[in-house]
């Protein structure tokens, strides 16, 4: 439980502290515990760093969405394998 909260908190703070590749990695790890978190981090990154909010493609938000969906699929797959075993 503490590990989960730690990873999620670190992922949420990573747009302020770490280079974005680490943010992507932490977002994915945190998403395995709580899928929508990557999307939230993507939105946060765009709010903080996007040069224009309304006139450009929100790349970070879209990446966050992809990671959230990916984590959801991976999570389901892992749970299904555990039940089968």
């Amino acid at each position, binding site marked *: 439980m503490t590990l989960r909260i730690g990873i999620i908190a670190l992922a949420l703070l990573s747009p302020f*502290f770490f280079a974005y590749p680490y943010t992507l990695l932490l977002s994915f790890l945190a998403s395995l515990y709580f899928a929508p978190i990557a999307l939230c981090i993507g939105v946060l990154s765009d709010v*903080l*760093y996007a*040069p224009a909010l309304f006139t450009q493609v929100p790349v970070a938000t879209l990446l966050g969405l992809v990671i959230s969906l990916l984590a959801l699929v991976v999570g389901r797959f892992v749970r299904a394998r555990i039940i089968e075993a």
Partner: protein
Amino acid sequence: MKTQYSRRTSVLSAQKSLALGVLVAVLVLLFILRTFFPTALSFIVSPLWNIGSMVTGTVAGISDSADVREERDALRIERDALSSENVTLQSRLAEIVDMPTGRGVLAQVRARPPLSPYDVLIVDEGTQAGVVVGAMVYAQGGVPIGTIRDVGKTQSRVMLYSSSKTETLGWAGEQRYPVTFVGESAGAFTASVPRDAEVAIGDIVYLPGPGAVAFGHIENTHGDASSPQTTLSIRPYINPFSLTSVVIETGTP
């Protein structure tokens, strides 16, 4: 045969739904602040950016220490050469120092790549200091590095020329061959020129500033033998990863 059942749970538990609700509320609040009260957003997140800048600076300092020592020795030699050149230039500068030149405001960089996923700098000067959208931004040596894309009262976002797919007109080589530099992110550029263009590895590349301002050199050329075009890889003098301050053109006389 024993059949196993698993109880289907909802996608999110009540606890997770509550956490998600809080997160979404905070993000909406930040979004509203960014849109309508950028100064307040800057005030809230500045301490976090400062800590982040300190952390990345420390990590980079540790990993680069060996390179820094080598670079120091090379720079000492270069310094001696430059100091004699400086004396010559100072005498020339004395002749033009009274001529009217554009004024700029010095701004500290709060966030830079790779902290920002786009090639964007967050700087600590805004409309209060006369910064306007579209103003040119210069690094050390008067090298143009980008333009102001978004401005608040006390902070601005600088869109670097090296942002992905950003096109900037300039020149290459001693003959000032006109080229379009294409941003490749992380401070890198490429450009395409006809195969018979008189540019070579090591040639200096220029951007339009006050005159033609050298901003890097051609590091490599590559292209298909059958193609009429050659692609130039450009290494800029300014590394956006280590920018700590910039000058923003304010345009006020």
